[in-house]
């Protein structure tokens, strides 16, 4: 199968996923206690005129299946509803905050991948050695640590006690930096949250790389590489790692929802102005349209990200395309 056919097949496969996500939200709005309109206008209430208009717009007097059709069409057209608090379109609010989250996620995952892959290879070189045991313990701790608590401890130690890093926000608003100074300022604010998330995610990458490299080193082509007299470093990093990385790539796809959840929790701790802060505000104000819009937006992001990961995988490993 060519790559294009594969892409089309995968694209087709995403449609039921998105439809499923929309159906779940639609079902929840209707199953929740009270009138669906209540969830769209909030506790502040609205005039009867607005309520009637919403009711007609949503087609609440029509059969459920028609209502679902209307709702799904609206969502797919990009209308995720309006925030109860500010009245702004939900999609606009989300897109405003999304770049900050994306920056945090990309930075932390690059860090986690570099640290995790290096430690994984080192750990796989001599399984059950003292070094391996220390690294394994670190990965176990990384799995169990609650990311928001880790963030709080980082703030206490590096923010308050040592006073090395700023503790809240993304920029120093008082200084109002521009240009390169602004970039540096953002990087300075980014350090603690990115480090926190990287420590939290490193365990997964590490564990996978370790088991994958151990598995690969038993193969014939590694023996050949060793027999050729290549240095251990070249064998491990040039020959073993390349093949061992494939499963690591797939798992990143599966773990994306978890990565976003972690980012959102860490953002809340560090006052990072991304989706996390938005989620917290939406929860506090019981801004239902915003919460539901966030869910749908993240579904779409996860589905698209998985698509990209699948394609990457297919491009890296031709066997996938034929199976």
């Amino acid at each position, binding site marked *: 199968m060519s790559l294009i056919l594969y892409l089309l097949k995968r694209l087709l496969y995403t449609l039921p996923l998105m439809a499923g996500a929309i159906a779940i939200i639609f079902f929840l709005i209707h199953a929740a206690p009270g009138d669906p309109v209540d969830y769209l206008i909030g506790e502040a209430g609205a005039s009867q005129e607005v309520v009637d208009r919403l009711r007609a717009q949503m087609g609440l007097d029509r059969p459920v299946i028609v209502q679902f059709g209307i709702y799904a069409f609206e969502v797919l057209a990009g209308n995720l509803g309006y925030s109860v608090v500010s009245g702004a379109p939900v999609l606009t609010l989300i897109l405003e905050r999304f770049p900050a989250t994306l920056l945090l996620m990309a930075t932390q995952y690059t860090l986690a991948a570099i640290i995790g892959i290096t430690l994984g290879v080192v750990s796989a070189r001599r399984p059950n050695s003292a070094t391996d045991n220390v690294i394994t313990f670190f990965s176990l701790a990384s799995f169990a*640590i609650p990311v928001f608590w880790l963030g709080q401890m980082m703030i206490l130690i590096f923010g308050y006690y040592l006073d090395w890093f700023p503790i809240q926000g993304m920029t120093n608003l008082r200084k109002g930096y521009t240009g390169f100074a602004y970039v540096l300022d953002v990087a300075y604010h980014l350090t603690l949250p990115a480090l926190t998330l990287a420590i939290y995610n490193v365990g997964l990458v590490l564990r996978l790389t370790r088991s994958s490299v151990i598995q690969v080193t038993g193969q014939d082509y590694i023996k050949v590489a060793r027999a050729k007299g290549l240095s251990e470093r070249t064998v491990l990093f040039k020959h073993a790692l390349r093949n061992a990385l494939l499963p690591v790539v797939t798992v990143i796809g599966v773990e994306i929802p978890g990565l976003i959840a972690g980012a959102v929790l860490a953002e*809340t701790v560090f006052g990072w102005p991304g989706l996390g802060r938005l989620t917290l505000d939406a929860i506090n104000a019981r801004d239902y349209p915003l919460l539901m819009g966030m869910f749908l937006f*993240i579904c779409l992001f996860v589905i698209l990200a998985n698509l990209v990961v699948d394609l990457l995988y297919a491009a890296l490993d031709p066997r996938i395309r034929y199976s």
Partner: protein
Amino acid sequence: MNASASSITPANRSWQRFKANRKALFGLGVLILFLLAAVGAAQLAPYDQLAMGASFHPPSAVHLLGTDSLGEDIFTNILYGARTSLIVGFCAVITSTILGTLVGATAGYFGGAPDTVLMRVTEMFQILPQFFLAIVIVALFGSSIWNVILVIGVLTWPVTARLLRAEFLTLRNREFVDAARSLGMSDFDIITREILPNALPPIIVNCTLQISSAILLETSLSFLGLGDPNVMSWGTMLHNAQDFFSRAWWMAAFPGLALFLATLSLNLVGDGLNDALNPKNI
């Protein structure tokens, strides 16, 4: 398998292997401490729940781990928090295991169309951002502890279902199952009395690991302010600590440490069980 070896049961052998694993034993020890704390919270706690004293009292002999912004004793709250966490963990995992077993056993045993349909649904559930769905559901339907348990249980079954399906796929064609079938056993009996007991080890391991993720999910929700206001949760304690970093480091440090130790010990026990019950994995 002969009569003279009857004292060495498989369970016995597994326990021997588990005992030899120091990490797993450490995990089990910590876990037992948490269980005792949860069961005996009312007896062990030095103060009444909701009893208020001086605010922001640092850790001392009077208040072992200090007091919070309302003057509540942190150690007391951690004990009651252990109760909540373990209840949530166990109940949510029982829910998800029942759902996952139903789906996984049906899909794996019957195969064909039921398998395809059920696995598509499972995959869909797995790709959904569970954390955000949990936020939406708890925000819509209220944050009572039973609601939270139900939501976690309903959202986390896919892992169990896939695991069980894989077990059933390998077990359903084994000789003892064929024998049971030729004896005229019904499908239901074969599933519940022949295959399921043999699929138990991976389910037990999975349950242990799932309890720790259920606890993490509950604390994450309460950390965001979606906790049950009527019960003490480590997540709620960390949520409250967020505003008082500069004044009371102990408000954040100790509840989080308890949470970390609880999830770590569950993971260690889970890994230990995995090695003990599936010796071929070593």
